[in-house]
């Protein structure tokens, strides 16, 4: 991608809804709320948009061809409309599709939106259908059983403790207090409270898990020819990477401890962006962490510390708002999780940090930010955004 053929591309506008249980709005209204906020923030209208990419997991609300039904709300009337549904990654896949459609030279300005209204449907029923119908559904235990089993592997490898995981859960909900869009904002949450919360599946407590939310998030990506006209400080795309793993849930060895796809995607993205020391060179990261333990495992696999040292990152305060590399100043997935929008929120937050739009949870002087999406079967998307236009 660092080639003369790729058009340099930037995020020029971002928008998101207040997330949570949004009984006041339909799913289409949520999507439009995020789109309008993104467009209005830079004085854009739908006239300026060449194509739209929509991300949503349609089994959650039971609407087939949801992009076609909501075409008006999505601002895609008369335009190319791409619909992606790639699981937890979908919001990031949507952002990456926007990038490719601009960087390829095909379009100048592309709108991407991720949206979900989990209170409309049955989250458990939808997640059950993630399992292979022939091989996996007969013995499934839902997302929580799956994450708990993965956490056990990670604990066996790294020796991370329930207290360290609980600290992650606390940090997320406290950070969320500085983010007006976040769902779970808990200023007074303590490690003890997490450890005493209901045990869902050993060792995962209720407060170790992400919530189910309603919400939407949107971006506009633009080519270098027009990005500067739209935003004084665009968030330039320095690297994107998508990497998968094998097909079934039990395929990847030590799946949460050694996250093959995350490591592969990070290696590719760092190489493109010229990052040798992510802990030093990145200024902020928005990591897609569905459970407390996962964040530490992901930080290890992203190279923020040595493998097995995830617990130290939280004990030593490395990833707090004031730390060397703040991770999820927005509160992350542990605070807010409208599935189809969740990974798009990571991209919106990373872009906001670069553009200086993050408000109370703004990290000072962000030059380089990383966002990830994770889902499907160990499927990873990474995007690295920066203040400077990338060099050829």
């Amino acid at each position: 991608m660092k080639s003369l053929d790729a058009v340099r591309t930037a995020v020029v506008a971002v928008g998101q809804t207040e997330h949570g249980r949004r009984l006041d709005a339909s799913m289409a209204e949520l999507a439009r709320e995020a789109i309008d906020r993104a467009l209005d923030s830079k004085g854009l209208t739908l006239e300026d948009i060449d194509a739209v990419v929509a991300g949503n997991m349609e089994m959650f609300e039971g609407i087939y061809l949801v992009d076609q039904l909501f075409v008006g709300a999505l601002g895609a009337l008369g335009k190319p409309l791409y619909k992606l549904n790639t699981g937890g990654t979908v919001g990031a896949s949507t952002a990456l599709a926007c990038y490719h459609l601009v960087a390829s030279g095909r379009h100048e300005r592309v709108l991407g939106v991720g949206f979900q209204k989990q209170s409309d449907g049955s989250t458990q029923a939808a997640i059950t259908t993630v399992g292979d119908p022939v091989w996996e559904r007969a013995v499934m235990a839902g997302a929580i059983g799956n994450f708990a089993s993965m956490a056990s592997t990670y604990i066996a490898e790294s020796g991370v403790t329930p207290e360290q995981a609980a600290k992650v859960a606390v940090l997320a909900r406290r950070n969320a207090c500085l983010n007006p869009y976040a769902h779970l904002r808990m200023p007074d949450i303590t490690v003890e409270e997490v450890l005493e919360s209901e045990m869902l599946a050993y060792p995962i407590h209720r407060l170790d898990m992400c919530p189910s939310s309603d919400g939407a998030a949107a971006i506009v990506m633009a080519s270098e020819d027009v990005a500067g006209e739209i935003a004084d400080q665009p968030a330039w795309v320095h690297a994107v990477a998508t990497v998968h793993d094998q097909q079934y849930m039990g395929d990847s060895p030590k799946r949460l401890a050694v996250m093959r796809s995350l490591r592969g995607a990070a290696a590719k993205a760092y190489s493109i962006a010229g990052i040798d020391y992510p802990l030093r060179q990145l200024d902020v990261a928005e990591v897609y962490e569905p459970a407390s333990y996962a964040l530490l495992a992901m930080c290890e696999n992203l190279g923020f510390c040595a493998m097995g040292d995830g617990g130290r990152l939280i004990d030593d305060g490395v990833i707090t708002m004031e730390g060397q590399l703040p991770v999820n100043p927005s509160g992350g997935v542990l605070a807010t999780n409208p599935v189809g929008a969740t990974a798009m929120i990571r991209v919106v937050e990373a872009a906001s940090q670069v553009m200086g739009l993050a408000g109370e949870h703004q990290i000072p002087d962000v030059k380089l930010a990383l966002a990830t999406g994770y889902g499907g079967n160990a499927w990873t998307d990474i995007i690295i955004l920066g203040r400077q236009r990338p060099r050829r």
Partner: protein
Amino acid sequence: MSDPDPRVPADPREFNREQARRIEQQVTLHYRFAAGKYASRFFAALRDEGKILASRDRQGNVMMPPRPVCGLSGLPMDEWVEVGPGGVLAGCTIVYVPFIDPMTGVQRPVPYGFGLVRLDGADTSIYHLLDETDPQRIGVGKRVEAVFKPVQERTGSLADIRHFRLLD
């Protein structure tokens, strides 16, 4: 025009969540999944012979569940090998949240054990139920063994293995 419900304002900007209406609907989807040539052979061997079969490519990768192509080598998997019934826990948990069993529509009793089992001879693992509910007795690396349902109860499904039993 008279207002149908005076509590819901005509101006949408004055609308708030207390006035929000929800509409109940059931979306029911029914499927007949073709199991295909790999699963058909696998489930026949499981039901009739109590054997667990995996697929192997010519580099020696052994994949469970069996499948047409090995993702690691990209090679077709045209050999069958028997794996298990013993294995090692690669991941495990005790689940306390109620879960509707997708095959039966019935809530599975809690708590129950759930684990990722690396069957002896296989390079990948499968999820299955464990016959243990004490979190202190399970653990990554512990040995387990498949416990089959009696022949007459088997239907040709992964549930023909009732659960995995901890050996140590």
